[in-house]
């Protein structure tokens, strides 16, 4: 009765049944007419998670070129980058495309273990990728089989504006001491020393990676990622103590949880901040004509003599196990992975090409990363790519909280340890 009332109240007139029938009939007719009448003989579907417009364009261009060469129609479905992270788990099970984008390493392994990615070792063999890929092949290898092709590598570190540093006479910090004193100088110049927006949580985890790699090194870091080391281990304390020192020195953006990385990057572009911790895609935050001002510097040293380990994250591209056109998918991947196509695709995000036979890049950010990688002795990917996704969620939240409330260190670590025990059954 009340629901009847509500309709009467809102509409104040009963809807005409005839009108409804007309409307429904039209809708039905539209649906049948709109359905494609001709079935494509050969079609390849790709789900992409690329957010950047110019990179989408390059992918579309490669796909069109492939269409012309092979006669296979290629359909690209673009998804929002964040939404894709959740959608992939359902579409890999039901309604898989022939090719999809994802992240190598542990995140790939999660799907390999559930038999959702196709083994493409045959493609590796056929195209002899191992000889051109080098260490990047390891990121897509599980138990000696390959389950994807590595795409661009993102080298994480500090970015700054050349013109600002030149004008103020600053140099990129090489030690913690220099970082702190640069922070003081930046603050007296009315700038935020390190721009950091943690609304999406992950930027704080990147900072943690740097600190942990500089203080405890790669082996201990990976042990922590694999759940083999406790978060309450005494070796963790110096990491958080040093970090708290930086936070209390006012090095990071105030109210950092209010905004995301894009706004943080904009602060750097607008000369409101001196530095920012990110990867090559920081240039999306800059106007086109100012992108040549961006410069890269590795994260400063903390423990003297510690070998240089960095976060180097590799995206990847895969053939789902449930794909319908696995053969065409392999063909397309081989086409897409030709040095020219691949480097055109990667140029747009300033990512380091995984193949060593790609033409040399014209992008100074890529070349800086390539140059810098030569002195890197080992790499992790990124906190939320290296550890279990469930652990990552709690970890990211914990780091975000730590940056806002450094005095809660012990509670946070306690909580992370409880989570680690639950997930890794330690």
């Amino acid at each position, binding site marked *: *009765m*009340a629901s009847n*009332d*509500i309709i009467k*109240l*809102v509409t*104040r007139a009963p809807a005409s049944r005839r009108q409804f029938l007309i409307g429904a009939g039209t809708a039905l007719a539209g649906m049948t007419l709109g359905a494609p009448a001709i079935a494509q003989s050969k079609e390849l579907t790709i789900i992409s998670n690329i957010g950047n417009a110019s990179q989408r364009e390059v992918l579309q261009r490669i796909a069109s070129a492939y269409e012309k060469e092979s006669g296979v129609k290629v359909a690209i479905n673009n998804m929002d980058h964040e939404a894709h992270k*959740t959608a992939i*788990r359902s579409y*890999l*099970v039901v309604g898989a495309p022939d090719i999809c984008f994802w992240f190598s390493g542990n995140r790939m392994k999660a799907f390999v273990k*559930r038999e*959702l990615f196709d083994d493409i070792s045959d493609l590796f063999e056929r195209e002899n990728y191992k000889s051109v890929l080098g260490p990047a092949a390891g990121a897509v290898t599980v138990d000696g089989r390959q389950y994807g092709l590595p795409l661009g590598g993102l080298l994480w570190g500090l970015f700054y504006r050349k013109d600002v540093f030149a004008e103020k006479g600053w140099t990129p910090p090489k030690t913690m001491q220099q970082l702190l004193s640069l922070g003081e100088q930046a603050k007296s110049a009315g700038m935020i020393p390190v721009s950091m927006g*943690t*609304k*999406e*949580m992950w930027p704080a985890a990147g900072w943690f990676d740097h600190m942990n790699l500089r203080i405890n090194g790669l082996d201990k870091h990976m042990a922590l990622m694999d759940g083999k080391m406790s978060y309450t281990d005494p070796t963790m304390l110096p990491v958080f103590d040093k970090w708290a020192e930086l936070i209390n020195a006012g090095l990071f953006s*105030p*109210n*950092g*949880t*209010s*905004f995301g990385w894009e706004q943080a990057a904009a602060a750097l572009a607008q000369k409101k901040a001196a530095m920012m911790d990110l990867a090559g895609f920081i240039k999306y935050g800059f106007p086109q004509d100012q992108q040549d001002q961006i410069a890269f510097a590795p994260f400063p040293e903390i423990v003297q003599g510690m070998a240089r380990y960095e976060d180097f994250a590799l995206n990847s591209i895969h053939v789902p196990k449930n794909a319908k056109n696995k053969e065409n998918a392999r063909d397309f991947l081989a086409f897409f992975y030709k040095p020219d196509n691949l480097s055109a695709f990667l140029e747009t995000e300033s990512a380091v090409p995984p193949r060593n036979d790609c033409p040399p890049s014209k992008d100074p950010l890529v070349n800086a990363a390539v140059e810098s990688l030569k002195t890197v002795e080992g790499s992790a990917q990124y906190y939320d790519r290296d550890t279990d*996704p*469930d652990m990552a*969620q*709690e970890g990211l*939240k*914990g780091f*975000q*909280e730590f940056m*806002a409330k450094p005095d809660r260190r012990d509670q946070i670590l306690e*909580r992370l340890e409880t989570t680690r025990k*639950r997930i890794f059954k330690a």
Partner: protein
Amino acid sequence: MSTFWRSHRYWIAPTLFIMPGALLFGVVIILASVETIWISFFDWDGVGAKQWVGLANYAQLLDDSQFYVSLKNNLIWLAMFMLAPPLGLALALLLNQPIRGMRVVKSLFFVPLVLASVTVGVVFTWVYDPTFGLLSLIFSSFGSTAPALLSDEHLVTFAVVVAALWPQVAFCLVLFLAGLNNLSEDLIGAGRVDGARGWPMLIHVILPQLREVSFIALAVTVIGALRSFDMVAVMTSGGPFGSSTVLAYQMYEQSIFSYRFGYGAAITTVLFVIMAVFIAWYLRTLLRPEREGI
């Protein structure tokens, strides 16, 4: 055939008409609810095999500090949302005047109802932004700095609820406006003859006639408060560090980001039980006059 139809149509016709709705309701609501409760007894990542864990998910829930934060936030939502019906009524009374141009004003008040809640969330996020937001402009014109509402773990839930209240008040306003249009002129006239004006008129003549509308407004508001999710997702993603998370969002986060469908289902089940209490009250109130009517 025609005699069969004639003798049975008293039940065949209604059954046929109810069938599509009942089928949809059965599959989408009932079946899904039962399955959710069933999943809550498993450890499941959403893709692989399910593993029976009995009540372990619920036991974990009791130990989860985040769960209590979400529960507390749901209560804040519920309490603050109770402002929507009275505010809506007040606005409706204000707007229900035969003044020229009132239609334009009315439609301005309807605006948030037309906007998708995602839009409302984004707009309020901008308003609250500590660097360029409207709020900070207002504060700085008085020479002080605005608090970063969405970064403050104690204020963030209130800030989100205020944003969600805006369309909710508009919704109640529409209900009450419609209700005010349906008032019995006779009763009002009779009241006027008896000398009722102002407050006595409102309380003794108008409000009793709005009883049913108020009931709907209240019920819709309660349910709206409990199932709050979109605003939290858009404005804060449950942050900073989980302090604005509500049960529905925690369920989403645990299932989608942490790959813990069993645990997410357990959270949903708790939310379901809380909602069931209100729904039972709603149905009881709804069915009582109907039964009395027969």
